[in-house]
């Protein structure tokens, strides 16, 4: 639940597993896409319109705000589906829509739905904030601003009392963690030109994440690059200067990653939750930051940098294809049964093996993400140290597991 003097921690949710992980690990709000009209159109991970009531049901119980992302370019043929979607969102009790196109903003206002302005609009100055305040209560600033610039904007909002349709001061939001775009967000056409696949219709092919060589056509000489991933930015991470981030006066911190795995959402949200709470109770320290960073490095990342927020350096490029995560998950088996009285979960081992002392991960659409160390188990009803493929094993756990749950073990990743 959002405590109004604290910043809001906004989590990405690509599916029910991630949604549950966000809820359990302390998100104040979640954002998600439905069908194709959002920045992850290609992903098979989007929710459908029928999922909306279930999303609000799960979130309302914990007073978590829900934001529907509807932020692609909109064509005439989309006009009716956006109305259908927004109407359904309104009925389901979704808190707000994250929008870019004026058609979406306009219809949302007509049905009195709260509007948030998407990063696709790239707000970089106070006059633009004033303009969008006519329609929106929250707006995310361009990822290319420095914290100093963000602070000026939040101060101005306060000073000029810039209010949104709700009558409250508009809330300024920034990205806190996750992938960065090599172009100004929403203005990249690489994928469109190379694959007919428009990033601005949510179908980015991630050209910037690939290796390139540069050849002088005249001489045929290849220009030497010290990094062939010449346009793949490292991931944004603001955790180590979160105190400065909060001091800018922002109200919402958004975590990117609707395409990431549920354990990513769990880990990143849990870490930022702790860090934000530590800031407010005065215990934010270098020592803690060190531990939190180690935690963050365990899940998907292309290396971290501070983005443009600290304003000093340009372009920190990733030097790998994919992740630098220090650990990964390996599929072991699936959930079979839960005995609620004895609090025992039964799993069928379908691959590899499981040993006492392993860190295990259980994920599922209702369970979300649970990670813990395996301290005891029964294998085919006998107390054993190791369970192998084909075995049935039972583990004491104090939460319900389901048939749809998957069991993984966490191993070191040696990229």
């Amino acid at each position, binding site marked *: 639940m959002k405590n109004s003097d604290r910043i809001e921690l906004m989590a990405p949710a690509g599916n029910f597993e991630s949604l549950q992980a966000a809820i359990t690990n302390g998100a104040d709000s979640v954002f998600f896409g439905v069908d194709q009209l959002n920045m992850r159109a*290609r992903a098979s991970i989007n929710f459908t319109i029928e999922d909306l009531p279930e999303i609000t049901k799960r979130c309302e119980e914990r007073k978590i705000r829900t934001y529907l992302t509807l932020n692609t370019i909109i*064509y005439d*043929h989309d006009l009716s*589906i*956006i109305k*259908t979607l927004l109407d359904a969102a309104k009925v389901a009790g979704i808190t707000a829509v994250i929008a870019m196109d004026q058609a979406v903003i306009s219809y949302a206002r007509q049905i009195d739905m709260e509007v948030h302005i998407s990063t696709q609009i790239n707000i970089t100055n106070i006059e633009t904030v004033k303009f969008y305040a006519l329609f929106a209560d929250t707006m995310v600033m361009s990822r290319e601003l420095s914290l100093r610039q963000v602070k000026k904007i939040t101060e101005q909002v306060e000073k000029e009392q810039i209010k949104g349709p709700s009558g409250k001061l508009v809330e300024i939001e920034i990205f806190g963690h996750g992938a960065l775009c090599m172009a100004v967000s929403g203005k990249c056409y690489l994928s469109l030109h190379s694959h*007919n*696949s428009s990033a601005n219709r949510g179908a980015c092919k991630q050209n910037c994440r690939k290796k390139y060589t540069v050849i002088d056509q005249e001489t045929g000489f290849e220009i030497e690059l010290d990094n062939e991933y010449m346009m793949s930015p490292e991931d944004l991470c603001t955790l180590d200067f979160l105190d400065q981030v909060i001091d800018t006066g922002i109200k919402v911190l958004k975590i990117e990653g609707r395409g990431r795995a549920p354990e990513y959402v769990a880990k990143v949200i849990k870490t930022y939750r702790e860090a934000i709470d530590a800031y407010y109770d005065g215990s934010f320290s270098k020592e803690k930051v060190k531990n939190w960073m180690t935690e963050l490095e365990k899940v998907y990342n292309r290396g971290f940098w501070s983005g443009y927020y600290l304003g000093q350096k340009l372009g920190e490029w990733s030097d790998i294809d994919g992740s630098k995560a220090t650990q990964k998950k390996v599929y072991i088996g699936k959930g079979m049964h839960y005995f609620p009285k004895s609090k025992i979960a039964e799993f069928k081992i379908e691959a590899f093996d499981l040993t006492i002392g392993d860190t295990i991960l259980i994920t599922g659409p209702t369970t979300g993400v649970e990670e813990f160390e395996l301290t005891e188990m029964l294998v085919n009803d006998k107390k054993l140290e190791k369970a192998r493929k084909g075995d049935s094993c039972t583990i004491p756990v104090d939460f319900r597991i389901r048939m749809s749950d998957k069991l993984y073990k966490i191993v070191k990743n040696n990229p």
Partner: protein
Amino acid sequence: MIVVTLQRKKCIGCNYCVELAPLQFQMSKKDGKAVLIRGIEKKGFYTIKSPDETIHEVCDLAAKACPTKIISVKIV
């Protein structure tokens, strides 16, 4: 005979196919995805069979342009 298939569910509604083959594709106002005109549905795949071989070229262009690669064109 030309056989054109559209796997509709994965469409992102970018409109490319309609630009290239406007007599075979149109955008649905209902869900914003492409419709293969007169396509017959089977398990999410919409198919037309046409004796008119002149449609091959445009449908092939649409298939190549489609960013999600859900259009296929065959001569049988």
